[in-house]
């Protein structure tokens, strides 16, 4: 840090000034202090996706991850509840679980350093030679309080947490956007999802927001993905057998190069707090081949009418701002984890629709591999564009990024609504939420 002036800390005015109704300042992507404040403010006030409860099916099962910079453990208690606890021994800070996932031996968390033990709800169980603390202030110190549980909500298996004690309530924060999770869950004949198929972990050397913005950007696929999806289309046309159905990979690739009209008409729904989804009317997932056995099981479970409604929703990407994006129609999610101002880890998780044929899971894993893997031809060009923004914005010619597309003065009163999907309203909505969550507890310094 040294003598660097603090431009943004304790200055909500300076933070707010980075976001105009139709532009954002490049510092939201480039400035290290802004990034630090994002981790301390926005990512503490927002509800963050932690993991799925199927990752911890039994008491004592845990999964470790990070929320902003905080190491946390998602763990199932003896009471069956899934909790989110700090992954930090109350004593000296040792991580209590170092594996990504596992099961606590003996039904407790035990520190590998001095052997302090904790119950699965985080309360302190034993401290070796405890008499050594007699006559000290230990009992009233935070160290004696065990692991302070992080506020969390398990929404239909999706576990979200909020690090800060202040901030919007879960239902107020997500509101109607939760309908995308509902639809994903209801696509299981049993109404249940299970994490399956492994996790793709793709390092992005770019700011996290470039990824999140791109998820509802309907103006880029036909340009950025011409070389991959376009080539897939042409290759199939040259070697394919027109009478037969196209292979799954072609079916998944080709819609990426649909025209502007298609992407405009699929529609985008924008909610408060930065959430949105594309594919209100249809999406690139709408025309996948029918899987007869699956549809039969869905009709059996829900009745023909309701099954048709559930499967008729083919939403593209839903953004749960700031760290989760889901594809209900393909049962894949992506979780953004910022590592630095210009470094982000994107994890792609896939799900089994409990009660559905394996073919559905194969469709899911195929899609995730084609689109979200570090080896993905589609992902390469997306990431190339994000990296190029990260570097291009160093240009001194203009410090502002344009979000003018279809901007209307009426947005001053709120951005929520349904629009043509090429509208940049989702990004403007994200930055409105960004400015609010960044300054929520800054006061008017």
């Amino acid at each position: 840090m040294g003598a660097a002036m603090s431009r943004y800390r304790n200055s909500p005015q300076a933070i707010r000034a980075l976001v105009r109704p139709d532009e954002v300042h490049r510092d939201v992507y480039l400035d290290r202090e802004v990034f630090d404040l994002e981790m301390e403010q926005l990512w503490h006030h927002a509800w963050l996706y932690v993991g799925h409860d199927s990752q911890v099916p039994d008491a004592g099962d845990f999964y470790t991850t990070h929320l902003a910079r905080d190491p946390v453990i998602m763990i199932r208690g003896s009471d069956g509840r899934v909790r989110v606890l700090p992954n930090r021994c109350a004593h000296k800070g040792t991580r209590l679980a170092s594996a990504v996932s596992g099961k606590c031996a003996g039904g407790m968390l035990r520190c590998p350093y001095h052997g302090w033990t904790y119950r699965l709800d985080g309360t302190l169980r034993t401290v070796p030679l405890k008499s050594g603390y007699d006559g000290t202030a230990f009992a009233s110190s935070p160290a004696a309080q065990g692991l302070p549980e992080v506020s969390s909500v398990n929404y239909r298996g999706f576990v979200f947490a909020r690090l800060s004690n202040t901030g919007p309530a879960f239902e107020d924060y997500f509101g109607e956007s939760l309908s995308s999770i509902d639809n994903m869950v209801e696509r299981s004949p049993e109404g249940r999802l299970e994490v399956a198929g492994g996790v793709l972990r793709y390092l992005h050397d770019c700011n996290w927001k470039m990824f999140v913005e791109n998820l509802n950007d309907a103006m880029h696929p036909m340009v950025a993905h011409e070389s991959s999806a376009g080539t897939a289309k042409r290759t199939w046309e040259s070697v394919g057998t027109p009478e037969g159905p196209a292979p799954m990979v072609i079916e998944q690739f080709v819609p990426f190069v649909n025209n502007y009209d298609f992407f405009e008409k699929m529609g985008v729904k924008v909610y408060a707090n930065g959430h949105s989804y594309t594919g209100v009317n249809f999406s690139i997932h709408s025309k996948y081949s029918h899987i007869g056995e699956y549809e039969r099981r869905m009709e059996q479970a829900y009745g023909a009418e309701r099954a048709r409604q559930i499967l008729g929703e083919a939403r593209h990407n839903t953004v749960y701002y700031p760290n989760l994006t889901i594809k209900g129609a393909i049962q894949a999610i992506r979780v953004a984890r910022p590592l630095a101002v210009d470094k982000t880890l994107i994890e792609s998780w896939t799900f089994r629709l409990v009660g559905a044929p394996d073919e559905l899971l194969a469709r899911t894993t195929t899609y995730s591999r084609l689109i979200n893997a570090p080896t993905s031809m589609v992902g390469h060009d997306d990431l190339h564009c994000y990296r190029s923004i990260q570097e291009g914005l160093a240009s001194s010619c203009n410090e502002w990024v344009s979000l003018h597309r279809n901007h209307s003065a009426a947005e001053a009163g709120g951005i929520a609504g349904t629009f043509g999907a090429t509208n940049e309203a989702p990004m403007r909505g994200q930055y409105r939420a960004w400015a609010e969550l960044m300054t929520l507890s800054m006061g008017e310094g």
Partner: protein
Amino acid sequence: MNTALVDFVYREARLLDEKRFDEWYGLLTEDVRYWMPLTRGQPDGETFTSLFYEDKLLLKVRIERLRHPNAFSQQQPSFCQHVLQQPTIETSDPAANHYVTRTPFMYFETQLDSQLVLAGVTYHHLTVIEGALRMRLKKIELVNCDAALPSIELLL
């Protein structure tokens, strides 16, 4: 036969390193699989995601995409170098026309100033078609298959 198997493995890597993709494509059987699993001991590429799980059609798309003028991530081109350990013959079954080699490797992929280094073991499943060895399966087991990885732009 053993020499021919080992020569095949070396040649296959060399064609990729020299971007002689059409010649490389000519080494593949119609039912080829190019597979790089995401986890250790992964049973299949269907109920589990893979880093690569490509059939002949997808490999053609991949090669054509690398040549596409608007393959933006390759406008500054990537280059790669395989460094192979001596392959060992794991299976040699002329009656079944089935041969398997095992080859530990290091793989370097560069793009101007950035360099990615990967290591692992590759299994080649080979078969003779019209007098020439052809590749039915190339299975690449990365030692760090579960790591957070940057873009891998070329073929291992």
